[in-house]
């Protein structure tokens, strides 16, 4: 459950409340879907129940109650284990690119045209990411961008091979 572990990672740098955790998460992973506050507080409640975080301070200064959380020694152990464990590869379910191409092929629609247009969209997205890459010297930020660029690269390679297969099928129908 990686969101909880990322929150543990942020808390290991110092105690923080839910709003800070969301803000730091969203800043560090600009390509990821922003965390919902509900998601953050639900994760914190579960982490607290499991003894991985604890309440460090609760402030009531006229406004809504603000609770600051800190990582526990057990939480630190859990974080270390997570950091040292390799993630499984995949699965890679058929996404919209695959579904649309297969549907177009089944219907005899213009799959090649779609693949060509999609390549343009992916290349433009990669150009944007490379521009971001050029504009930062921060290693962590560059690693995040590398991850996005590598995914775009993989999909561009898939688009290229799919286009070649569609072209071959057009020459010699199976």
């Amino acid at each position: 459950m990686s969101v909880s572990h990322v929150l543990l990672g942020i808390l290991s740098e110092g105690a923080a409340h839910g709003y800070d955790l969301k803000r730091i998460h969203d800043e560090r992973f600009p390509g990821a879907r922003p965390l919902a506050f509900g998601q953050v507080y639900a994760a914190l409640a579960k982490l607290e129940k499991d003894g991985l975080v604890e309440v460090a301070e609760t402030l009531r200064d006229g406004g809504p109650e603000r609770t600051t959380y800190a990582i526990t020694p057990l939480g630190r152990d859990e974080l270390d284990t997570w950091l040292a464990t390799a993630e499984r590869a995949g699965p890679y379910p058929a996404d919209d690119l695959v579904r649309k191409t297969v549907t177009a092929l089944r219907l005899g629609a213009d799959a090649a045209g779609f693949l060509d247009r999609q390549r343009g969209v992916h290349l433009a997205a990669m150009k944007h990411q490379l521009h971001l890459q050029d504009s930062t010297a921060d290693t962590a930020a560059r690693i995040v961008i590398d991850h996005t660029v590598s995914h775009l690269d993989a999909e561009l390679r898939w688009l290229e091979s799919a286009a070649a297969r569609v072209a071959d099928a057009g020459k010699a129908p199976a």
Partner: protein
Amino acid sequence: MTHLLELRGVHKSYARTEALRGVSLDVRPGEVVAVSGPSGSGKSTLLHCAAGVLAPEAGSVRFDGTRLDELDEAARTRLRRREIGLVLQFGQLVPELTAVQNAALPLLLDGTDRRTARTAALAWLERLGVPEVADQVPAELSGGEAQRVAVARALVTGPRLVCADEPTGALDTVAGEVVLTQLLAAVRDAGTALLVVTHDNRVAARADREVVLQDGRLASGQAAVTP
């Protein structure tokens, strides 16, 4: 804007294989154009026709209005040496010469005196971030360093066009990124056009425009790569 390079209906065959089947392509001054496509689609042949290294059997190749395909070999070589830089996948440096001698070679072949040629070559090695390898021979260089020396050699005459065939193809991702960044910065600063054959999507994404070859024909392209 007028075109620096104009290919019209270019055909080129090797024995019975038609490598190019009527390719037309324009490159504007200072423009970066990526040529993509599967292996065997004719990318390198297109690049070599554009650079005046190969003469097409049919069609025309104009460089700044001059028909490259109608020049004799000597005139084409002269024009190429001054106006068109070439970068190949494996650098193709002369193994007996040092990096700075390799980079200075086009100027020396064109009659520039040794001292001026060395100064210009050193300036390019500096610009490309490898001044420290100037007196080393190619066997002592890493792949990325050798490729940057090859880029210096391509740019040393101040050409208006650089033709690059898989310039990052033999390098790992990080070294390729360095070479690519330096090559693009250098051509953009100098206002030099770049026609670059590539399998690397990162190269295509950094281009102004991508054309895709398939079976010796342009499958798509001319569209700008814009975010």
